[in-house]
């Protein structure tokens, strides 16, 4: 470990970011990965292009002194991940969102099975999600059942632009997809996370079109549709759909790190989201390891809406809103009892490992712990 990281850790502890202005904010990182992009695992050039593209997003929106090198980015491993998420209590819990990409990576890029390594070791800290791909037909339905039986997944992450053979993507509103959504409903898998975001080379932009969420969301009112990356570069289409479908939520991954080097844009995007969706349907996610909650959470909590935007939109990024966006909203979707979690985390393995017991011990703001 470099000196730089140690130094930063000390600064972070001083900030005690989960106690923002003396108030507890329980942070559930709604979007994390444990991926393997090692050269041995890549079996199609698309796999290399994909991780290079991820890396560009990483460097573009990460402070220079917090950027990783490509080797650690390809494979950071379970221990590093636990440390990044929890060692300074940047996050209290995290939700795995798998990304299979089995045409690109021999063992998959970030599968439920890969994520399960950590999720089953720390079941109180992690939520493990599954996935489906309607192009897999019967076999796919069986796999979904298997994920349900084996891991009891409460949600799925969907990648509509994933390549599969000659196909360059699929739509959430076609008949095959509806069959899988029906299966989700039947199995009690209520949270449907759809990646609708920036073009990721070499996937097709049009397959990330957000319009298909509309029909799916109105046809399955009992399911929750969390649109990851708030549809960027189709924020306008996304907000318009979300304004009409109240089971559509916005995941902040990609928008969140604007807080760090495009604060004015962050203010504007957040204002739009709060205006169109309200404070109950916006959900924080870091997209780890594209961005690291160990600096990102603080940036987002410290971000402010400009006076101009507050006046124009009549919305606030205040403590109550932050509590909802950073944890309470997704806790509702996943039936997470935040108070019970706080109790449990007083002496769980992770709190013991990183000396965090005091932070969960009382409602009172803890003194700086060093």
């Amino acid at each position, binding site marked *: 470990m470099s000196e730089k990281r140690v130094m930063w850790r000390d600064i972070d502890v001083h900030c005690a970011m989960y106690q923002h202005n003396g108030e507890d904010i329980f942070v559930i990182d709604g979007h994390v990965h444990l991926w393997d992009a090692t050269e041995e695992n890549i079996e199609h050039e698309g796999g290399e*292009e994909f991780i290079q*593209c991820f890396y*560009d*997003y990483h*460097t*573009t*929106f990460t402070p220079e002194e917090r950027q990783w090198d490509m080797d650690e980015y390809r494979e950071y491993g379970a221990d590093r991940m636990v440390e990044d998420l929890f060692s300074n209590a940047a996050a209290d819990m995290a939700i795995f969102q798998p990304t299979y990409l089995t045409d690109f990576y021999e063992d998959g890029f970030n599968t439920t099975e890969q994520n399960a390594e950590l999720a089953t070791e720390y079941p109180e800290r992690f939520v493990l999600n599954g996935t489906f791909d309607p192009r897999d037909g019967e076999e796919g339905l069986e796999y979904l059942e298997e994920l349900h039986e084996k891991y009891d997944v409460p949600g799925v992450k969907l990648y509509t632009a994933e390549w599969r053979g000659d196909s*360059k993507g699929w739509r959430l509103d076609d008949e095959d997809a509806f069959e899988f959504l029906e299966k989700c409903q039947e199995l009690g898998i209520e949270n449907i996370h759809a990646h609708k975001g*920036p*073009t*990721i*080379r*070499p996937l097709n*932009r*049009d397959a990330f079109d957000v319009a298909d969420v509309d029909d799916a969301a109105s046809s399955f009112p009992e399911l929750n549709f969390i649109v990851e990356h708030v549809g*960027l*570069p*189709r*924020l*306008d289409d996304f*907000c*318009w759909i979300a304004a009409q479908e109240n089971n559509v939520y916005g995941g902040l991954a*990609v*928008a969140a790190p*604007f807080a760090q*080097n*495009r604060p004015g*844009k962050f203010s*504007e*995007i957040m204002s*739009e989201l709060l*205006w*169109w969706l309200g404070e109950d349907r916006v959900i924080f996610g870091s997209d780890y390891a594209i961005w690291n909650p160990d600096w990102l959470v603080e940036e987002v909590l410290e971000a402010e809406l400009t006076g101009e935007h507050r006046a124009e939109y009549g919305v606030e990024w205040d403590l109550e809103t932050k509590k909802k966006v950073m944890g309470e909203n997704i806790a509702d979707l996943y039936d997470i009892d935040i108070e019970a979690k706080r109790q449990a985390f007083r002496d769980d393995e992770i709190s013991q490992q990183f000396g965090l017991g005091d932070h969960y011990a009382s409602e009172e703001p803890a003194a700086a712990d060093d």
Partner: protein
Amino acid sequence: MSAQISGGPTRGAVRDRLDRVTDPELDRSIVDLEYVDGIEIDGPRVAVDLTLPTAWCSPAFAWMMAVDARDEVESLPAVEEARIRLHDHMHETEINRGVNDRLPFAEAFPDADGDVAAVRTELDEKARVARQYDAVEALLDAGLDAEAIVDCSPCDLEMTDATDTVDVYVDDRSFAVTVPNDPIERYLEKARETDLVSEPDDLLFRTPEGDPIDPESFDHVHRRGRLAQVNMSSQGGICDGLREAREGRLEGTAND
């Protein structure tokens, strides 16, 4: 750089034409966005070097910009041929060949699904909605209310070139307000391109779906224009960032 060979265009004239080409997703000039790396003039032949923020910018968008740049430069009387050299793009070979050999998109990208015209239309419509916001803001600033604004037609507009302003007549031409020309002109350009406004008595402003605006829902429609702008400028923020990261990396390599 050699002196101008007689018969060729000036660099300034070429630049002005390129300035009219927009990144269709951001609705901003490719000159302002610094996508133009070089202009080479050899008599009546012009070559334009383009680099986009990322190597994986949508091939359809890259294609549109390359074709538009070629056509704009060739619209200069002094230019016989314009060639485009797109650099550092994952599909530069297909795009350069297609644009310079004047192939249709479908022939340059045989495995692409959907044609480029539909993508262009969709983005033009978004650009219109975003530009409508600025035009309507100008009218609101001038004191017009929702009822008056939703009733405006092109025949209510009178441009005054000398002052770069436009007079907008309302209430059966009983009075007029004066607003800056620029947002109105920019809006009209896209409204015409998207075929929403062609006759003098067409309604000037529309919902994003192209319908007349009910004064009751005026505020909401106006908000959607703002949202379209925020979407474009957010995407612009991502593109800017990626371009900076890419330039930083290229510089790093050059210094090694």
